């Protein structure tokens, strides 16, 4: 693997299903996970809708890719952030969102839910700190 580890930030701002952005972003995150980089996935604006619980797409004839978010921990994605202001504007709380578990296979350290709701200042800081931002 590459010796230089870069901080990748995947920035999701689109709702699922209405456009292809959310699904494409998820594909890129999963592909990127194979390259052992320092990955953060962030959801702001309508992107927070990607994580809502209870998605059931049988009525619209599209693939329900919502369960895939819950497997991100298995792909060594350990940092998932949600913008608090975006949740509030949509009348949502963390209870409305799926949980993503993470486990360190070597130490067996386990985190029940790595989804972290953060304020605007933290969102800005994470954008500043990243080496590359992938926008969807």
């Amino acid at each position: 693997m590459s010796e230089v580890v870069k901080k990748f930030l995947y920035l999701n701002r689109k709702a699922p299903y209405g456009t292809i952005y959310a699904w494409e972003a998820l594909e890129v995150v999963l592909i990127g996970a194979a390259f052992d980089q320092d990955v953060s996935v962030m959801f702001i604006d309508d992107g927070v809708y990607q994580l809502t619980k209870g998605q059931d797409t049988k009525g619209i004839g599209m693939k329900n890719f919502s369960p895939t978010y819950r497997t991100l921990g298995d792909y060594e994605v350990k940092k998932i952030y949600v913008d608090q202001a975006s949740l509030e504007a949509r009348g949502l709380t963390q209870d409305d969102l799926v949980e993503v578990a993470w486990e360190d296979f070597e130490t067996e350290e386990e985190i029940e839910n790595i989804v972290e709701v953060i304020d605007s200042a933290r969102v800005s800081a994470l954008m500043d700190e990243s080496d590359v931002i992938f926008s969807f």
Partner: protein
Amino acid sequence: MSILHTVNKSPFERNALDACLRLASDGAGVLLFEDGVYAALDGTSVAPRVSDALSRLKVYVLGPDLQARGFSAERVIEGISVVDYNGFVDLAAEHDKVQAWL
């Protein structure tokens, strides 16, 4: 008679809903579907604007699109009717024409 207006864009991302609510005549129908269904949810920053419109417009939301996005009928603003695809067809047939706010 009247127009059925359809809105399929998120009210947080586009101004389609606002343009529709501003320009739809009293008594017209508004159907929210695809990403437009987020406008039907209670407790959001756009909900007061939609609630206000209910006094002069009939608003509908497409159930399968709500369900796909993880929301049940209980999260919908009171006064908005949840319809299925057959209901969508009926609405299109009942109105004189359809204006799609793309």
